[in-house]
């Protein structure tokens, strides 16, 4: 029977080797799936709650997926694409921002829990020998507690119960009554609202995307002007100029249209810019941007 342990060891070694090979191959191959999917799964959809760009069905996520696909098609690596998004939108665009500051909590709390629970388990497994309190300090009371204590307990409990009810009643008075749902939201208004939020966060590219979404549903000059402003701030002077020109084709004297067009022309066709901006000043001398434009023209 001497062969049995040897055979057992042999089988074990063979199984371990095969399993190691399987693990190694699997680990090496894990990264070879769709690169677009793997990048977008790590990006947070800015218009949704807790969904990744890969899973969200919102238009802005679709736009971001397209942006990732474009960059991957241009031969950028995953890390490059990720870095590009972080540079543009800040680290919060990542679904898992790198742990720093408050985010350390996400790791510290589980680690402390593991330690504390592990310590408690150790205590349960290896209890310290008891010295002084080998006997229970007070034998557990049996039967109802003696009269005086019971009456006190009764009074306090009844009082506590009533306090709970009264505090709920009082707290409820201070509440806003839950309002009935507001009138159905207009999807265009939602898109414009989202875009404004994005603008407030200096994310003009994403804002422009949302304005384009809104425009597709409602070709409105106010939205087009906002799009033009967002494009201008995002650095797309050509796009901003086009949008402003479209507005001006309907309303040749739109002050905002002239303003954006002029500012865009300063980058695309510097020769025409002063003329457009001067026209802006004549059309809207009271415009809040007018003093700034006067200064610009004077400096030129």
């Amino acid at each position, binding site marked *: 029977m001497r062969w049995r342990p040897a055979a057992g060891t042999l089988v074990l070694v063979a199984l371990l080797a095969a399993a190691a090979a399987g693990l190694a191959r699997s680990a090496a191959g894990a990264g070879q799936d769709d690169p677009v999917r793997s990048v977008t799964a790590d990006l947070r959809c800015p218009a949704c709650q807790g969904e990744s760009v890969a899973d969200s*069905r919102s238009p802005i996520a679709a736009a971001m997926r397209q942006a990732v696909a474009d960059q991957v098609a241009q031969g950028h690596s995953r890390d490059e694409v990720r870095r590009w998004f972080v540079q543009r939108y800040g680290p919060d665009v990542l679904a898992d921002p790198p742990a720093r500051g408050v985010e350390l909590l996400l790791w510290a709390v589980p680690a402390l829990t593991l330690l504390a629970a592990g310590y408690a388990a150790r205590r349960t497994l290896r209890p310290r020998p008891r010295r002084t309190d080998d006997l229970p300090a007070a034998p557990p009371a049996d039967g109802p507690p003696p009269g005086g204590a019971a009456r006190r307990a009764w009074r306090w409990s009844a009082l506590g119960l009533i306090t709970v009810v009264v505090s709920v009643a009082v707290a409820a008075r201070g509440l806003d009554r839950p309002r009935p*749902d507001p009138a159905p939201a207009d999807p265009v208004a939602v898109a414009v609202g989202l875009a404004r939020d994005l603008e407030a966060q200096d994310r003009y590219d994403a804002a422009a995307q949302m304005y384009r979404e809104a425009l597709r549903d409602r070709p409105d000059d106010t939205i087009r002007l906002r799009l033009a402003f967002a494009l201008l701030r995002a650095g797309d002077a050509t796009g901003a100029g086009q949008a402003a020109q479209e507005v001006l084709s309907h309303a040749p004297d739109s002050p905002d249209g002239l303003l954006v067009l002029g500012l865009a022309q300063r980058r695309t066709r510097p020769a025409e810019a002063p003329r457009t901006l001067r026209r802006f000043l004549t059309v809207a001398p009271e415009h809040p941007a007018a003093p700034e434009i006067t200064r610009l023209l004077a400096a030129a």
Partner: protein
Amino acid sequence: MLGELGTSSLTVGLLCATLTALLWLRVALFGAPTRPARLATAATLATAAVACGVLEAALLRHDFSVRFVAENGGRRVPLYYTVTSLWSALDGSLLLWLLVLAGYAVLLAGRRHPPRLQAYAMVVVSAVTVFFFALSCFAASPFRAVDPVPPDGPGPNPLLQQHPAMGVHPPLLYVGYIGLVVPFAFALAAPLAGREGRSWLRVARPWTLVAWAALTAGIGLGAWWSYAVLGWGGYWAWDPVENASLLPWLTATAFLHTALGPGARRAGWNLVLACASFVLVLLGTFLTRSGAVASVHAFTESPLGPMLLGFVLLAVVASTILTGWRTPELAGRTASPVLSRNTAVLVNGVLLVTIAAVVLIGTIFPLLSGPLGGVRTSVGPGYYHRTALPLAIVVLLAMGVTPALRVGDRTQALRRLAVPGAVALATVAVVGLLSRPGLPALSAFGTAAFVLTGLAGQLPDRLRRSGRGRLAGLVAHAGIALVAVGVAGSSAYGRDAERTLRTGETLRVADVSVRLVGVDRRGDSGMAVRARLRLSESGDAERAVTPALRYHPARDTAVTVPAIDTGLLRDTYVTLIAVSPDDGSATLRLAVNPLVGLLWAGGALTAAGGLGSALATARRRRRVGTPREGAQPASVAVRAGAAG
């Protein structure tokens, strides 16, 4: 009319609940007769039932003068979803919560448990009932009058009108959630009830098993609903609402194991876990029902937050004081061997508690990071994948090792683990070499193989012995292992693609392809757009599938209706994302999700195992026979019990 009836039933209910709590307190403190207390308990259940019935009647009769109906009812809503809209928004679901809670109270009052322990436990349950009645009465009454009365309502949230699981999932989840009040009540009652308190574990475990089985089924149905309705092809998004249901499940699972066997050795663990489970239920209710944490499916936003939070704190304080006050002394103060079931159960407890900590901090992080100076962001699935999943695999491993430790003899244990270990290694080798699922999925496959082989090895032994509860435990564990295989398989081998197709074009994923035949619009109730598709798998005959987009004007939302083709080994899942204005093209997402069926099967097995175990425990108890109390006053019974 109905509104006034409902309001008065809530008011009477609040009075009844308060009276119930006080009467049970008299039973506990002075040994007063239990009959009035039982009657008051039953009366509380009756008022909760009347309140639910009145609201249901108002929904069915489209009585829009009742606020809840005006906000959640609608004439166009199908009958089934009108019935289920009782729990489709906060105020109505609070009534269902009350009904279930009062139901548990009546069941608990009706069982023959040690009398003082039972009385104190009933005080705790009734106090919880009082709080929720007060909440429903003062802060979230669904019965307030609406003036002027609207002609029609918007109907419940469109996502809640799409899947038949809506009728079962919330009630089951509530039965699970609220059932955890029973172990909580017993844990608080144990230190108060003196010597009787020592039996609390034996008494509380079957109740916990029932609640746990319902919670498991509820979570499983929730995942199924999410898979079938939300249209992104997944079943678990680590969303706050999902996490809130997972948290008590984790601690209750740990409790069920620490309460096994010589549970008195782990007295502290049992008390803390039993209390934590219900506190997490309350915390979850606070998180998801107060609008504190944004979620894909936290449908309600309400101002109940501060009150619920206050009650969570009250529960924490009460459980800390009561359980810390007089911890029942520990039996068997001897160190157990390192390789023993006791160790395994504690390791399992430590890991489950740590997973719960991961899920909890991930869920409340957005609440904490703002005030602490961070950016208010939610935590993405990546965090949980890196933290909770490895821990879960270790839990699975511990699950496979534990049964082998029965004898405590090391060589015996190793011999028992040899075959499962070999099968696990072989699985890893074969699966890893043939396909490349990635490390997490591969280790999950290996561990699941380990567990399943071990369980199969125990099957003959367990069948031979009479205890049916043991078989139920085995089934529950097998279910968990199957869920692990389903999760790993669907995340590792799932493939999807998304593209805009013109009519006649084809989208292909692996060997599955769909061809766009055309787009239909139906204008009757709005606005449903369907994409007619032909789907073919590995060159088989084509089948017609029609995913759709439904627009609900009353709520201004568009809802996708994915077309899911369920197979034995894999599902094909087609979602219509958008349609061009001229109907000439449609944006589609085609996903192939392998092994998803195992998730549902595993979840069902786990829940069934839990239920079977509860039934077996109850039957065993009945066979052994508990002393019948008869109609004598509790105090006499206590004395008699103490004497005998």
